[in-house]
C-alpha cells in the first residue's frame, strides 16, 4: 500500500506537528532569559543554573531515582517469575485468581490503586516514605513486566528447556542457561518500562508518599498548579533529552542485535 496521496502527507504532517510542537515550545522556552514564560527575552541558560541550585528539587530527583531503581528491579524479578509460572506451569490451585490479579492492575484507575494501598499501609501501621512508594510501584509495574515477558515466553519453543532437563540440568540451571538468555531482551524492556512508569507516576506516589519523601512528579505537580515556570521548562527539557537519547540508543542496539542474529542464521543455514 505505498501510494501516498496528498491527504496522507497532510495528515502525517499535521499529526506529527501536533505531537511534537508542544514539546518543542517547552524546549525552546527553557532557554528564555525572560521571567515571563510566553514572551521571548533573549537566549539564556540561567534557569538550568537555578534548577541545579534548587536543593528541594535535587532531593526529589534523588528520591525518584532511588524509588524507580528499586521498584523496577523488584518488579522485574517478580514479574518474570509470574510470567514463567503462567506460561510454563500449566494448572495450579488459584491460577485464575493469580492471572486475574496480574491483569487487573493494568486497567485499574491510578486513584483507586493509590487509595487502596494507602489504606493498607495505614491499617498495618507502616510509616509512609520511600519504602511505601517502592512497594506500591513494584505492585503495579510487576504486572506490566509480566505481560511483556510472557509474550516473549509464549513465542518460543519449550522443547529447548525440556532438552536441557533431559540432559541432566536442574530446573534452575535450565532456566538460567537456556530460558533466561532467550527472554533477556523482554526482561530488559520490562525493566525499562517499569523504570519509566515509576519515574512518571504522580497519582500513586501522592497517595503513598509521606511528608518525609517527595518525588519529582509530586514536586512538579505542586509547582505547576500555580502556573508555568521557566525552571520547570528547564527540568522538562532535561527529562525529554534523557528519554530521547535512551529510546534511540535502545532501538539502535536492538536493531543491531536483530541484524546480527539474521546474519548468523543466514550463515548457519
Amino acid at each position, binding site marked *: 500500500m505505498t501510494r*501516498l496521496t496528498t491527504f496522507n502527507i497532510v495528515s502525517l504532517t499535521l499529526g506529527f506537528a501536533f505531537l511534537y510542537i508542544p514539546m518543542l515550545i517547552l524546549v525552546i522556552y527553557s532557554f528564555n532569559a525572560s521571567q515571563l514564560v510566553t514572551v521571548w527575552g533573549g537566549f539564556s541558560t540561567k534557569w538550568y543554573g537555578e534548577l541545579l541550585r534548587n536543593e528541594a528539587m535535587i532531593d526529589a530527583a534523588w528520591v525518584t531515582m532511588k524509588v524507580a531503581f528499586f521498584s523496577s528491579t523488584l518488579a522485574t524479578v517478580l514479574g518474570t517469575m509470574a510470567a514463567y509460572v503462567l506460561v510454563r506451569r500449566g494448572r495450579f490451585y488459584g491460577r485464575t485468581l493469580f492471572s486475574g490479579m496480574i491483569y487487573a492492575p493494568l486497567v485499574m484507575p491510578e486513584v483507586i490503586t493509590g487509595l*487502596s494501598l494507602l489504606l493498607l499501609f495505614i491499617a498495618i501501621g507502616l510509616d509512609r516514605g520511600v519504602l511505601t512508594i517502592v512497594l506500591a510501584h513494584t505492585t503495579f509495574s*510487576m504486572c506490566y513486566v509480566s505481560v511483556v515477558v510472557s509474550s516473549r515466553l509464549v513465542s518460543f519453543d519449550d522443547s529447548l528447556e525440556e532438552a536441557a532437563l533431559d540432559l541432566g540440568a536442574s530446573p534452575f540451571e535450565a532456566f538460567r542457561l537456556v530460558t533466561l538468555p532467550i527472554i533477556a531482551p523482554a526482561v530488559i524492556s520490562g525493566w525499562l518500562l517499569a523504570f519509566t512508569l515509576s519515574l512518571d507516576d504522580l497519582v500513586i506516589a501522592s497517595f503513598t508518599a509521606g511528608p518525609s519523601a517527595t518525588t519529582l512528579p509530586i514536586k*512538579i505537580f505542586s509547582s505547576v498548579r500555580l*502556573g508555568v515556570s521557566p525552571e520547570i521548562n528547564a527540568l522538562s527539557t532535561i527529562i*525529554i533529552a534523557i528519554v530521547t537519547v535512551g529510546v534511540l540508543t535502545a532501538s539502535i542496539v536492538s536493531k543491531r542485535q536483530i541484524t546480527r542474529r539474521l546474519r548468523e542464521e543466514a550463515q548457519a543455514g
Partner: protein
Amino acid sequence: MRRLLVGVPFVWLLVLFLVPFGIVLKISLSDIALAIPPYTPTLDLTEGWAGIRDFFSRLDFENYVFLTSDDLYWKAYLSSLQIAVIATICTLLVGFPVAYGMARAPEEWRPALLMLVILPFWTSFLIRVYAWIGILSTEGFLNQFLLWTGIISEPLTILNTNTAVYIGIVYTYLPFMILPIYATLERMDASLLEAAEDLGCSRMQAFWLITVPLARPGVVAGCFLVFIPTLGEFVIPSLLGGSDTLMIGKVLWEEFFNNRDWPVASAVAIILLLILIVPIVLFQRNQQINKEAEQ
C-alpha cells in the same frame, strides 16, 4: 522450588492488591469518625467472636445512599463518561488519518514513523500535559498566534475549560489510538483494494467497503485503550480543566485529601470500578476475538 516460584508473586499480589481492595470495600461501608484513622468501626480481634459480629453489624450502605442523594456525585460520573466518550471519538478522528498515512508510507520510512509515535509515550505524562498550559493560557502561544494572524481580535479562554481537557486527552492518549490501528492497517493486503478498483469501485468506496471493516479490530482496541484510562483520569482535569470540570478521579482525590472523608472516597472508588467492569469485559472479548481471527 516450584512452590516458591508460584508463591512469592502470588502472596505479593494478594497482600498488596487484593487485601487493600478489601479494605476499600470495608471502609466504604463504615462511618466517618473524628479519630485516627478517621473511620469506624475498626476490627478488634482481641474481643473474639463478639468483636467480629459487632464489626459486621455496624457496616451499612449509608455512604452509597449518600452518593445517590447528593447530585455532585452522579453528575461527576455522568460528566466523566461524557468527557471520556467525546475525547475517545476526537482521538479516533485525529489518530485514524495518521495511522492510515503511516501504513501507506514507503516501507523504509515506517520504522522511523513508528519511533516518532512511540517516543512521546516514553516521555513524562505530566510534562506533556504541562506543555499545554503555556499554549492554551490567555496570553499563551495559541492566542498569540491567532491574534497575530488576525483570525481573532480578542484572546480566547481555553485553559481551565472542558475544551482544554479534550485537547489534553487527545494529545496524551494519541499513541494508544495510532498503534493498534496502524498494526491492523499494515497487515492489510493491498491487492484487495486493487481488486475493488478493478471491479469498478471508486477510491472512496473501496476505502469504506474494505479498509474500514478490516481496520475495525484495531479501531475498537484503540478506543478502549483511550476510554478506560480516561474515565478515572486525574492529572488532565486538575491541570487543564476548570472548577466546573467534573471528573470522578478529581472528586475522589478531593474527597480524600481535602475533605478527609475516607468512607465516601472509598464508596466513590467502588462505584467507579463497577462502571469500569463493562468496558473492560468488552475490551477483553474484542482482544480474544482478534486473537482467534489471527490463528
